[in-house]
């Protein structure tokens, strides 16, 4: 196949004509670039914090996959390769902002202070979403593609009605981040959400991680135009950013969130990135893509690139790397112990939250369930006693 020969930016399934306007502050070799519109000015500690978040997220991914292989998780949805997009975008949010993730945005969950064990509880099968969405400002993961986008817009409309937009008070002005993938842009509800947000000027940032593949379907099967250009049709700015450049992602998302918070309306960001691993642990990417493609993207790794940059600036040294490795090891150990210690919920708890107010049929079924449970318990016990006598 010829795609590797044509260069890593031009795999044959990619939507053409896209890179000229891509915001980049750090090229794939870790060299700092200037951009006329977007800039970030961070302290060394903040830069190290971004590296730390990406390294920890990659460790979460490694551990998640291992735990699935060991039978501790029913499924794992990997994030390797998307650390720059997830950490950069989530670090741009403020405490009062609200995030509507897909099922792959573990980086956003970590950045918003969610216990990583709670991120894994869904995949272990002990619940459908383990954290408090209100406390963290993070909606539960949404498994139905694009279904989180309209609620995100509605949430933003609620923010508008609360008068929490355009007040000029940085502690009050609020925005919403709606994450989606490249495949989600094909869903009708995604088009509704973009249009709806523009019509109502809702304070929403649509953050699309174009990781090139929707399970086995390349992005060219989702769209014949670059995804960020869909924003124009909806009536909002569309920005293309190098999703493997954490600085550019941070800068672009910050600007879009600021615009939303100040009452400027929605923005669509396409973070151009790559899913290095499988769609989930149930997937086999060797059936649908070339290893040459994956290898080419490995050259653009968001963590390696950032590390090179920090080294060249003298911000990162061996001591910090060693401390970071130790922190990641400790994180992994805590995660493994926490996941294995997650206890199965009481079976009867499945009846607890179907309704807020009593529903007689559900209550009757709960009683039936408990009666059958006790009966079978008694019978099992009786059989044991009978067998012994």
């Amino acid at each position, binding site marked *: 196949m010829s795609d590797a020969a044509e260069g890593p930016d031009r795999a044959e399934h990619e939507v053409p004509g896209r890179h000229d306007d891509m915001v980049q502050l750090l090229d794939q070799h870790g060299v700092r670039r200037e951009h006329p519109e977007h800039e970030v000015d961070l302290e060394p500690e903040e830069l190290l914090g971004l590296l730390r978040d990406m390294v920890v997220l990659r460790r979460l991914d490694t551990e998640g996959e291992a735990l699935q292989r060991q039978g501790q998780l029913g499924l794992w949805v990997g994030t390797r390769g998307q650390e720059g997009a997830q950490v950069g975008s989530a670090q741009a949010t403020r405490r009062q902002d609200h995030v509507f993730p897909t099922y792959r945005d573990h980086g956003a969950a970590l950045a918003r202070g969610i216990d990583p064990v709670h991120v894994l509880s869904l995949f272990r099968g002990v619940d459908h979403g383990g954290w408090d*969405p*209100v406390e963290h400002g993070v909606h539960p993961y949404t498994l*139905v593609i694009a*279904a989180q986008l309209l609620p995100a*817009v509605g949430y933003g409309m609620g923010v508008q009605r609360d008068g929490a937009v355009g007040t000029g008070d940085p502690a009050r002005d609020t925005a919403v981040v709606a994450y989606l993938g490249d495949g989600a842009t094909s869903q009708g509800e995604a088009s509704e959400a973009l249009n709806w947000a523009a019509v109502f000027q809702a304070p929403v940032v649509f953050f699309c991680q174009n990781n090139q593949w929707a399970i086995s379907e390349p992005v060219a099967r989702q769209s014949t135009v670059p995804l960020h250009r869909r924003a124009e049709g909806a009536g909002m700015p569309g920005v293309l950013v190098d999703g493997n450049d954490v600085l550019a992602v941070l800068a672009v998302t910050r600007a879009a969130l600021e615009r939303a918070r100040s009452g400027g309306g929605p923005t669509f960001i396409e973070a151009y990135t790559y899913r290095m691993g499988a769609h989930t642990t149930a997937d086999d990417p060797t059936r649908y893509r070339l290893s040459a493609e994956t290898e080419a993207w490995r050259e653009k790794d968001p963590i390696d690139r950032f590390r090179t940059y920090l080294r060249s600036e003298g911000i990162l040294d061996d001591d910090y790397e060693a401390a970071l490795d130790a922190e990641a090891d400790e994180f992994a150990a805590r995660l493994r112990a926490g996941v294995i210690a997650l206890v199965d919920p009481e079976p009867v708890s499945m009846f607890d939250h179907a309704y807020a107010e009593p529903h007689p049929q559900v209550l009757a079924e709960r009683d039936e369930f408990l009666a059958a449970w006790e009966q079978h318990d008694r019978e099992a016990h009786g059989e044991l006693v009978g067998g012994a006598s």
Partner: protein
Amino acid sequence: METMPIGKAINAGLRAAMDRDPRVLLMGEDIGPLGGVFRVTDGLQKDFGEHRVIDTPLAEAGIVGSAIGMALRGYRPVCEIQFNGFVFPAFNQITTQLAKLRARSHGKLSVPVVLRIPSGGGIGSVEHHSESPEVLFAHTAGLRVVMPSSAHDAYWMIQQSIASADPVVFLEPERRYWEKGDVDVDLGPGEVTPLHRARVLRAGTDATLVCYGPTVKLALDAATAAAEDGTSLEVVDLRSISPLDVDTVAESVRRTGRLVVVTEAPVFHGPGAEVAARIQEACFYSLEAPVKRVGGYHLPYPAARIEEHYLPSVDRVLDAVEQSLAA
């Protein structure tokens, strides 16, 4: 006591809820200056403003999906779906999101959204304007499904639905919008019938007719006609399809020994099947005859010029009663 049609009673109920609670918002297509295609929201945008009565883009998933988000932010959106057959583009938001968020979040998220859907047929309209989608929602755990049959219930049940912490599908019997009735607007707390309680509207001894929404008037008419022939029919208005007040129906059936369920929804796998199954479980030894069901056929809703043959009629109800009495 005030006399008004059902459509106006819903309007008055919405107005009362909006007066009482600034978090109550209305969303839908053409609900502003036009007042909705049935004029149910007439005058509300003028009085409450565009921020509380929101004319939306023409997108049903958008209406329900954004209402979910507003509810998560603490608002109480009441969505108008223009016609029953147009709710399906929103089905994903209703069944995978609206109905499930409470359970998924261990009760930490509340989604008190009301979906108002003109429902049932009999208005001589074109396709997708006359359907009865209630079982699709009743079968979805997490939703409540109710349908008033009188102006009084319409006025109070819409307010109770808005006050509910659960999402409520509020079906409006579209061919009864113009039917007038007395509304006691001055009832105090505890004086209003609970949202999910069925009501015996007419006492009788020979058989029970169970109905809701548009078939309530039909059942009452059938009971009047039967009385002329010396047959005494009890009429029970379910008012709520989920949950179902089985106790009230069972008490009635224990008295009469016979049950005919009358719905506009198709009989096959329909709401009548659920009532029949539960009543045979609860009242097997009181039943003198198999439970009969009268309703729509397992067909796409037919063209308007023949819909009267699809919809249950007094004659079809009386035929079923006759078969029940003969058994």
